[in-house]
């Protein structure tokens, strides 16, 4: 199998091309800063993208549209619990993750008990989560504790801390998918739910844990993003709705389910940041930028998917 037949290679090539084209304009200056920024901002997209990838792997129709609301709610409640007091970072993290578990279970309950299509269930539920966030926020702007803010914006061995978190999570997800029993169950369920059930796979357990996982990933991303940017905002998650799906698709995972691609998610997350900064540095206006971004996403998905069918 040659390198080009691996679907994830395309997102990495695209990211590298966007990076190189930006540096051409600046004659090579600012490369380190650009890479650092891409890793910082890409990390949030990668974390929510990993969660969304797990759900999309469950098969057609499975998607979590409540990611932005979960991020906002987790960040809001975590900051409230910490109320800027030093040494409360862990309390905040536990609060955020508990919110994730809660929204994940609520999403799955709607899907399983009411038999709602996931796209409707998660969209409707996200209105509720957003309302809870508004109600508990009441316009307050709480700053994260200083130590936590320093961690979220800090670096270790030259790389942003948030990128390390995203990297560790990517490795964990990769191991789970490729090596664990649960990962095999997830991939089997995504190919054909009935076959998986008849082969003895506990398919509802797999679906429930997947929907909880995506919400936990989203709440962790929300917690880190609020700490990174100095507080929670009600629209902080908005751009991650499409972003989370885009990085999965650009990364080469199959939208039809049963096939996922961890390295591709990271490549796509970097690309999504780099392409915007490239178009910015070339002075493209907002409209042109959106059109070009969309066109490039389509081109990469076509390149990755035609390669796959030939392989």
């Amino acid at each position, binding site marked *: 199998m040659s390198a080009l037949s691996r679907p994830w290679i395309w997102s990495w090539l695209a990211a590298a091309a966007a990076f190189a084209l930006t540096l051409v304009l600046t004659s090579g200056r600012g490369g380190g800063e650009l890479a650092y920024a891409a890793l910082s901002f890409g990390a949030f997209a990668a974390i929510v993208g990993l969660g969304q990838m797990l759900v999309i792997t469950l098969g057609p129709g499975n998607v979590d549209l409540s990611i932005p609301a979960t991020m906002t709610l987790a960040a809001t409640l975590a900051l409230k619990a910490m109320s800027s007091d030093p040494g409360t970072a862990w309390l905040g993290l536990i609060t955020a993750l508990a919110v994730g578990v809660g929204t994940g279970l609520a999403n799955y309950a709607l899907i399983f008990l009411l038999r709602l299509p996931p796209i409707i269930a998660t969209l409707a539920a996200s209105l509720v989560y957003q309302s809870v966030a508004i109600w508990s926020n009441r316009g307050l702007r709480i700053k994260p504790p200083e130590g936590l803010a320093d961690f979220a914006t800090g670096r270790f061995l030259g790389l942003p801390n948030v990128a390390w978190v995203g990297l560790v999570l990517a490795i964990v997800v990769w191991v789970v998918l490729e090596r*664990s*029993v649960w990962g*095999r169950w997830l991939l089997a369920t995504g190919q054909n739910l*009935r*076959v998986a059930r*008849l082969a*003895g796979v506990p398919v*509802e357990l797999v679906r429930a844990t997947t929907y909880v996982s995506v919400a936990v990933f989203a709440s962790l991303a929300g917690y880190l993003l609020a700490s990174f940017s100095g507080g929670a905002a009600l629209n902080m998650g908005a751009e991650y709705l499409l972003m989370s799906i885009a990085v999965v698709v650009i990364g080469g995972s199959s939208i039809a389910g049963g096939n996922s691609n961890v390295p591709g998610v990271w490549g796509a997350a970097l690309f999504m940041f780099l392409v915007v900064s490239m178009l910015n540095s070339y002075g493209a206006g907002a409209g042109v930028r959106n059109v070009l971004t969309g066109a490039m996403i389509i081109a990469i998905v076509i390149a990755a998917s035609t390669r796959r069918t030939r392989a």
Partner: protein
Amino acid sequence: MSDHETAPIVTLTDAARHFGPVRALDGVSLSVAPGDCIGLVGHNGAGKSTLVNLVNGGLAPSSGEIRFPGGASALEAGVRSVFQELSLCPNLTVAENLRISHSALKGPGWRTRARAEISESLNTIFPGHGIDPNAEVDTLSIAQRQMVEIAIGFAPRGTQARLVILDEPTSSLDAGIADQLLAHVKRFCGSGGAVIFISHMLGEVFDVASRIVVLKDGKVVAERITADFTRQGLVDAMGHVTTETATTETARAHGPQVVQTEQGLTARKGEVVGLSGLAGHGQAEALAKLYLSRSSSWRSRKVPDVVFVAGDRPRDGVLPLWSILRNISISILQQGAKRGLVNREAETAIAADWKSRIGIRTDDVTNPILSLSGGNQQKVLFARALASPAQVVIMDDPMRGVDVGTKQDVYAMIRAEAAKGRTFLWYSTETEEVCQCDRVFVFRNHEISAELTGADITEERILQASFEMQEAS
């Protein structure tokens, strides 16, 4: 007859087809003329499906030549195929499925014309079929779907069917319906049509074929008129040395009852229980219900209670994106798993063991499962179930498309496993298979109409119980 009518419909000259290093078809010459009914036999992976795909124009030959004197392409020459893997669109109605291969049906009122054409074709081939042309295909039983597919194959569709390829057409049909089909094939060939008939049921091949072609490892090893073959001679030509053994099982004592359903289906430890009756009378549903009630969607036990062998492979059995290895191991992942991680050495060892035990035709179990022929995919599903330690094995018509030699091997394997104390529930559309069971439940209209044991298990008694009794005694 004019020249056009006596000229061959299709001629293959030394046609070969390779898939990478695999020589699926290795130089075959064959000519099919109007009035021919060719029986095509051979083991799983002998190249039958590849040959069919060359003849119907689905694949181009890697070398050699294919000519259709009656038209530029297979389609124009009136070549049709009916596949073993059902290829109807389940969300469309019977009549709408006809439209897919009949592009001349258009304009206002095409549905009415489609309904009329498919009904006529069904009435001709399967009188009294009871299939509504307005029914959506996914509401039909597997046997009814097969009947629709056959009817579409023979329907005029704007021109006229001249050569119809039937790939395992009877494997999901019960005996009565299969007889209707065979009678139609004879009529069709008698009136100047041609048929290529592929079946593992040699009795049927002898019944309808005028000429038999034996394929082995991608080559034609024998081609003679039917009268020149004997049953044993044909089996020998296919290259599997098995004698048809009459299994005379001595009655064995069975253990305690391990299966009991509301319907009255029961099975004891170590017993092989058959389910029979006309196809679509609730046997498959009863087995699926039993399986689902004895396993959970929420918990997975290390030693499952029951395992399932699917007969409808795409719907119930095969995980299409995966390798043979992963398809075998999905039900036994928890054996030997450490801290939730799959024990990949044990997994590889088990797959290699079953590849040789059940004879899966592949050089590497990491090849995709879809690289295997239908019969070999079925062997993978058997391996999946038998590799599991579950004590109750549920089999939903598992021998569809499996060749004679493998069937004998699997029968022996089932007997050996039953002797070790495993229980088998086995639904089959072939009475011959059911007659090997210790006990048989005959289904009629989703209810058990008879329970037969020992010497009572005969084809006659099963047929009797399959149909409504005329008079109450």
